[in-house]
């Protein structure tokens, strides 16, 4: 069943929203609760009730819906505007379609490619009426999105039992690395994991204090270093402590750096090596945090961070704004990096696992 068919099915299900909503919650929880069961069995027999985690995720689902409303409505709005001006399938129409896509930060090359493919498709299907054209376009868009993400794995990888899982967070300045860690640590702690944070941003003023504050709020432990000290040393200490004291997950917060700053990128490589030297399987995840408002430069960020630290997934933050984050599509096409999480606000619960179907559904719901 293609993604498009799934979406159509979902649209029909909307008539019984209660059921769909529960289904959605279950879907979103599936990867998490599987893990959780395991931990519960192993570590803490029933000491952490499953209930709170579930209701919490449920409320984060609400946020997901609410947070994306703006993003979605503006894309739908733009698209509807385009269709409202529809007169005939001609060069002008496709130019405008191209521009609509570009306005969503999809990127010029991808927009061009999609519009070219669409042009063929519309001709092939001999679509002339407004409705036919619209359907063809959306089907194609969903298809392109789906195809690019084929075989993508957006679950979080965990270490084998007994070893800590290490998640390394990288990204340019001010995208929300520390905030994401604060939110994610809370999520995993509520699942009964023993969580440790490493404040390896020793450069920016107040960065360590920021993570320490999050650790306090999340009630998890944190390893810090002296201001301006070697961040790899903090990483070393943190990994050592995580192993010695049997933590389940170690989150490593790094200083923001621009991808074209070579020395800082090398520093990042060093941090990763420090982790791997102590734990050959780690880091299980290297998450590149991207600001949804970023334009075409995001692609360059993804490319260069991937080169230096072998990024395994993306976290898309600030999606609660008006930005459409269309650059994700380009990153998917170019680099096949899956989005694993989305940030939808400033509260600790404003982080949700990324659900590609849901994201696309959100974008096109009002159009199909």
């Amino acid at each position, binding site marked *: 069943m293609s993604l498009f068919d799934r979406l159509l099915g979902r649209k029909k299900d909307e008539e019984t929203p209660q059921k769909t909503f529960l289904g959605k919650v279950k879907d979103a929880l599936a990867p998490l609760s599987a893990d959780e069961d395991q931990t519960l069995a192993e570590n803490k027999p029933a000491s952490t009730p499953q209930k709170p985690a579930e209701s919490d995720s449920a409320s984060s689902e609400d946020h997901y819906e609410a947070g994306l409303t703006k993003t979605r409505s503006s894309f739908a709005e733009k698209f509807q505007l385009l269709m409202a001006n529809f007169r005939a399938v001609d060069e002008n129409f496709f130019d405008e379609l191209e521009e609509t896509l570009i306005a969503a930060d999809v990127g010029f090359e991808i927009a061009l490619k999609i519009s070219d493919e669409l042009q063929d498709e519309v001709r092939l299907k001999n679509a002339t009426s407004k409705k036919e054209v619209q359907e063809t376009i959306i089907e194609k868009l969903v298809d392109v999105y789906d195809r690019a993400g084929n075989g993508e794995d957006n679950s979080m990888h965990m270490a084998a039992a007994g070893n800590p899982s290490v998640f390394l967070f990288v990204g340019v*300045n*001010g995208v929300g690395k520390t905030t994401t860690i604060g939110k994610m640590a809370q999520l995993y702690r509520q699942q009964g994991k023993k969580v440790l944070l490493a404040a390896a941003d020793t*450069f920016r003023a*107040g960065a360590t*204090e*920021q993570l320490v504050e999050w650790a306090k709020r999340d009630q998890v432990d944190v390893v810090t270093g002296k201001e301006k000290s070697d961040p790899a040393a903090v990483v070393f200490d943190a990994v050592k402590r995580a192993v010695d004291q049997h933590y389940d997950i170690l989150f490593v917060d790094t200083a923001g750096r621009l991808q074209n700053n070579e020395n800082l990128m090398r520093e990042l490589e060093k941090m990763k090596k420090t982790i791997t030297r102590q734990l050959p399987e780690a880091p299980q995840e290297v998450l590149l945090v991207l600001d949804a*408002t970023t334009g*075409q430069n995001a692609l360059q960020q993804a490319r260069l961070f991937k080169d230096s630290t072998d990024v395994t997934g993306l976290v898309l933050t600030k999606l609660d704004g008006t*930005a459409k984050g269309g650059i994700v599509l380009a990153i998917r096409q170019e680099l096949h990096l899956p989005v694993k999480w989305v940030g939808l606000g*400033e509260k600790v619960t404003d982080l949700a696992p990324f659900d590609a179907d849901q994201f696309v559904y959100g974008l096109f719901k009002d159009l199909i």
Partner: protein
Amino acid sequence: MAFENLTSRIQTAMKNLSGKGKVSEGDLDETLREIRLALLEADVNLKIARSFIAQVREKALGAKVLEGLNPSEQIIKIVNDQLTDMMGAQAVPLNKSPKIPTVIMMAGLQGAGKTTTVAKLANKLKNDNHARPLLIAADVYRPAAIEQLQTLGRQLSIPVFDEGTDVDPRQIVKDGLKQADQEKNDYVFIDTAGRLQIDELLMQELKDIEKIAKPDEILLTVDAMTGQNATETAQGFNDALGITGVVLTKLDGDTRGGAALSIREVTGKPIKFVGEGEKVTDLDVFYPDRMASRILGMGDILSLIEKTQKDVDAKQAAAQLQKLQENSFDFNDFLDQLKQVQNMGPMEDMLKMIPGMANNPALAQVQVGPKDFAHMEAIVYSMTPAERLDPELLSPARRRRIAAGSGRPVIDVNKMIKQFKQMRQMMYKFTNGKGGLPAGMEDMLSGVDPSALGADPAQMGGMMPSFPNQGGFGGKVADFAMKRAFKKIQKAKKKRNKRRK
């Protein structure tokens, strides 16, 4: 996805045009399409790109072909002029209140760089104008935001006013201003929390602070990497607050920064400063012309066009150069060159200024750090004056001594000398007016010998075929640029010789 720069794009679009004295409407439209795409790739907002193109079209159609410029040069010039115009023809200084204190309030999305900018700007005022600024920490939401400002304040010895996170930001601002009044601070910065322009509650807070503080300057801080959304953000903040200026941050990245144009167009407010690094001194005033070439991805070619126009007779300049020629490029010149290059910024940036080099994927391979320059310098400094003037003196024994003196391996010394000789050869070619650009360029690039600097020479060689300017307009301009550079070397040499005598 290969990002081509605009220059090569336009050159492709206008290939059939060379030789024509006039631009036809059809030719123009094709070129304008390329320009539009270049703008979009640079993240200029769609609507703005569209209106911009319309304006350029109008001007280009009405324009007379300038003497000495071919049609593509002419269009580039119109585009550049228009772009520079739109971004405000010149730098705008900070507003100043007639009586102290001047109150500066920051606003922007999360993570745009407000706090860092406050520190940089306060530091600049303190150093340049002997100002006594006070920083008010009014971000009570983000964890450790206040600590961040306090730490920066401590580093710069600038007082920071805060009342913790439990007090309403409005009250903090009130109290902070009171303190500034007592202490007679001449500048007050209000660092606010990042917020979305659609967050009504937090926007109301900003409006209230604005009413309380009546700031002389409300600076919107925007990340230069922002995409199409820049207009919405800028519009939102401007409508709510009536911003007075913009600070563009993170411009030290490799973004083209089209957001600058969008923001300027939507708000009509000047971009006053740009943040270009993580150090507190990395703040510069905004130069519209530099931003224009950056958005277009054209490097310095534009300023070269300007210069070609001014120097009416390039031939005459070339003749002068010939007269100046002396085939005696020695290590003193080399050192001079190194210093000049260092002053101009990182090597990658330099290479990007050469037309056709910006966004060249091969460029990523050229990794020249400041340390490499330092090493080369150390080697030259370890030579005797006689050796510097006459490289032929450098026997293996001398080379070993130099290696020991500079703390570099002998291999490095040998490499450096080889590079130097290549450079000298190229100098000779150029000053004799024989070297056409492609050959000359190749020599120059091998003159920077990538192997010594950590890049693979084969890849550097691979860069050559993509060099778009085989003769024609670009070739001429680049040729001219090279000649100018050598003229500069000769001048410096003369000066040095004089000093010696």
